[in-house]
């Protein structure tokens, strides 16, 4: 498995190169910030007409992760849909695709700031999920221990002999892990900005996504 293993409040987790988080002991797959329907929302608001393929690409990658790991539970950690109308506008074949992915496993939708109310039938809708020693929610709360969250779309860069490589990344320390955005049309927030530097401990690490999940000290201010 292409991933980096680390422990959070006793739970052994794997940050996958694909951007998903795997909790092997519970057979739980966590993905965050899919932002399905983003191109549709931008078009609706009179903005640009992006290539309308991000739903297909995001779900193709999710399907590959599910096929590789066969999780018993999939948790979508919020901002699964870019907004309620984007969810409502998803074509029938995408809804069928989502039902197909749900078959044979439990599925939990955590509410995010883009999708605060349940947008789809099927699966369980929760504001947050307490699972053994950890809590899963969309936005990290300072002072919590054992927390798995998303929302910030962290990214980091690594300098290689004059070349600079920037990748979406996981951030983790003794208290929490923040997932990268899984959706194809998502940007990132540098880990050395004030938000993420403020949330994470000084000894936090970043796991860069990609063909190999490289771990580095979290770049911070």
């Amino acid at each position: 498995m292409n991933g980096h293993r680390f422990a959070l409040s006793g739970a052994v987790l794997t940050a996958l190169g694909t951007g998903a988080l795997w909790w092997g002991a519970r057979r739980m797959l966590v993905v965050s910030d899919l932002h399905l329907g983003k191109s549709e929302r931008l078009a609706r608001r009179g903005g640009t007409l992006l290539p309308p393929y991000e739903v297909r690409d995001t779900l193709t990658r999710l399907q590959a992760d599910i096929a590789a790991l066969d999780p018993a539970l999939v948790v979508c950690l919020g901002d699964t849909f870019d907004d309620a109308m984007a969810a409502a506008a998803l074509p029938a074949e995408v809804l069928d695709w989502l039902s197909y992915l749900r078959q044979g496993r439990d599925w939990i939708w955590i509410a995010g700031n883009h999708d605060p109310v349940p947008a789809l039938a099927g699966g369980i809708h929760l504001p947050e999920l307490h699972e053994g020693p950890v809590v899963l929610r969309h936005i990290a709360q300072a002072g919590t221990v054992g927390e798995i969250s998303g929302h910030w779309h962290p990214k980091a860069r690594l300098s290689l002999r004059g070349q600079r490589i920037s990748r979406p990344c996981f951030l983790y320390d003794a208290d929490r892990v923040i997932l990268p955005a899984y959706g194809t049309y998502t940007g990132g927030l540098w880990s050395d900005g004030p938000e993420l530097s403020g949330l994470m401990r000084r000894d936090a690490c970043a796991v860069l996504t990609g063909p190999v999940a490289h771990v580095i000290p979290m770049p911070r201010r």
Partner: protein
Amino acid sequence: MQPLPPPIANWFAARGWQIHPHQQAMLEQARDPSLLLIAPTGGGKTLAGFLPTLAELATPRTGLHTLYISPLKALAADIRRNLTRPVEEMGLPIRIEDRTGDTSYTQRRRQRADPPQILLTTPESLALLLSYEDAPRIFAGLSRVIVDEIHALAESKRGDQLMLCLSRLQTLAPGLRRVGLSATVEDPEAIARFLAPHPHPCAIVQANPGPEPNIAMLDTGTPPPWAGGGGRYAIPAILDQVRTHRTTLIFHNTRAQAELFFHDLWLQNHDDLPIAIHHGSLAREQRERVEAAMVAGQLRAIVCTGSLDLGIDWGDVDLVVQVGAPKNVKRLVQRIGRANHRYNAPSKALLVPANRFEVVECLAALQAARANDLDGEPRGPGPRDVLTQHILILACAGPLDADALYAEVTTAGPYAALTRAEFDDCLEFAATGGYALRAYDRWQRLMLRDGCWQLRDPRAAQVIRMNIGTILDPETVKVRLRGKGSALLGEVEEGFASTLTPGDTFLIAGQVVRYEALREMTVEVTRNPGRDPRVAVFNGTKFATSTLLTHRILDIFGQPDWPDLPDHTARWLALQRRISRLPERDRLLVETFPHEGRHHLCAYGFAGRNAQQTLGLLLTKRMEDMGFAPLGFVATDYATLIWGLEEVTDSATLFDPADLREGLEGWLAGNAVMKRTFRDSAVISGLIERNIAGRRKTGRQATFSSDILYDTLRKYDPDHLLLQITREEALRGLVDFSRVEEMLARIGSRIDHVTLPRVSPLAAPMLLEPGRVPVEGAARERLMAEAAAALMQAAGLDELEAEGA
């Protein structure tokens, strides 16, 4: 002979001036629907363009009469000042105003309500004016449009956009007459076709070209170095020239080289001659100070780049020094025109080759300039990303009829051959995105209502207006001295800034500075008078040597001996001929030799820097597939040098044209240069918004890289319009595949592979070239792993990790 109206004739007479024959010709042909004036610098070109306007406006009238368009904002403002004075002295009732991005909001509003008789503007400001609903009213009475420096505009997408705008102006004002003002060019007919409404003719007025310029290579005493740029070896000889002339312009090809040269020049300027530096990365206030000092005659020399190529008189320049090979004969000739900016005085110019190879290139350029053999790379048909932007701009002004718009845009010279299908693709892209998957039927950008296309959401007009233009500067960050209220020094490319670590030194505005921190998109620096700056690689526009010049260089190589070349260079070429061969025009020389434990291959394609770089990418990929384990390459204007672990014994298979073309479509399509090409077209066509300074990526995670869009389109919609445009753009610019094609056609299957025991005289300088490109591939993830592990260890986190997991 057309008599001048009395106020103008009296004004000339009072000064004892006579109008030039070409100015008279412009007056006599003033009724021509299209008219192109070709005149050397200093030939009274601008006045020639305006005289008919002044004559017509001697009879008072209201409303916009003449629109003047210049590629430079500063030029528009200068012309306003220079034209207002004579107009006042003549007592003519004419209001003259400029309108650029620098004009105030109230002024711009007033200009729309009550336009002046003469409006001076830029292509982008004109496009913006045409996006307003009241454009038909503003331009209804327009009689003349004057396009200044049209030779420069015709070389870029700015010119294509301008010609589309003129086609709209012609519809709004059917009697509009067009005038183009051009410097000396190789093909005036091409500029005339560019300017005139297709298929109508365009008369050409040729001014007397003036006396032959006096050009020579600077004799420096010492031979130039084997490699590198900048010409710093020649500083003592150049300072001698500065001393014996009134004002000298010292041109460099890149801003970084200008900075390095200027820094060293000051260290050797023992007489404290007043010498300044001027280039596009410097803060505007700093540039304006230099320009003012020059006009006031306070400077003896200015170290500069193409930022001084265009524009009005810069004082009393009597010598132009070109440091580094000029790369392009036409640009050289136009630069030389900057010296003695007065008609009928010969210009004086000196060429300074920066390295040994450039001695040959300078000789070739000198011979071409003397023979008036100017190079021009013919431009392809008008690019469709510009057309798409134009459609969106016009949609902001009001509903569009597709048939009428097609008829209108095909009157623009660059778009004369545009097919209806190509036009429909652009309209479709503007309306729906043009995707194979029909996704936006409800949310189209343009809707067809009552037979006309219009914006579905009128608020979209604001976004479209913010994105007007085809100039895409690389993203830059400001450089400022640390401390409150400290001076802004200029800008560097963001990519360069991100490679800096605190303590690094670099050169900007002629000073060595020390990098301290990056804060809120500003690089903070402190002064550091140390003498060891890191090279500033900001905005280094690297022009490729033109096809004409490379052919002339190859012809020089073919001579039996070289009496015109300095002895040191002639002996170098003779040695190459004895040990290996000299490259020839219709053959490809490939040398292989061992050096420092690596096998090297040098291919002398003479295709120009960008194409040789592309060739390097394609060849190393082929070599990796064939098991030669290439490690890296470096490209110059004339060759690509590749090193690796295995020896290439038969190079013919590497240069199979079909394989190289396939590489462009396949592997190269995923490369960063193609992504950059895509991004530019995506911004111009309106698919993504340009980053407006101050508003951009201040940590907003909502924006994402255009690379993602490129990858997505390649995966799911490979025939999409924007990918077609990207492939067309790859024929020129950064990828420049048309030059690879030109080389392949030139060499056919005639490849001379020479195996040598050691590096050849011609290849040796290549080993000293900067800009080595490591070969990416499987090795990259391994390098990342090493770097990551080293960081973890340095931070003491590796042990923590071992405990945690």
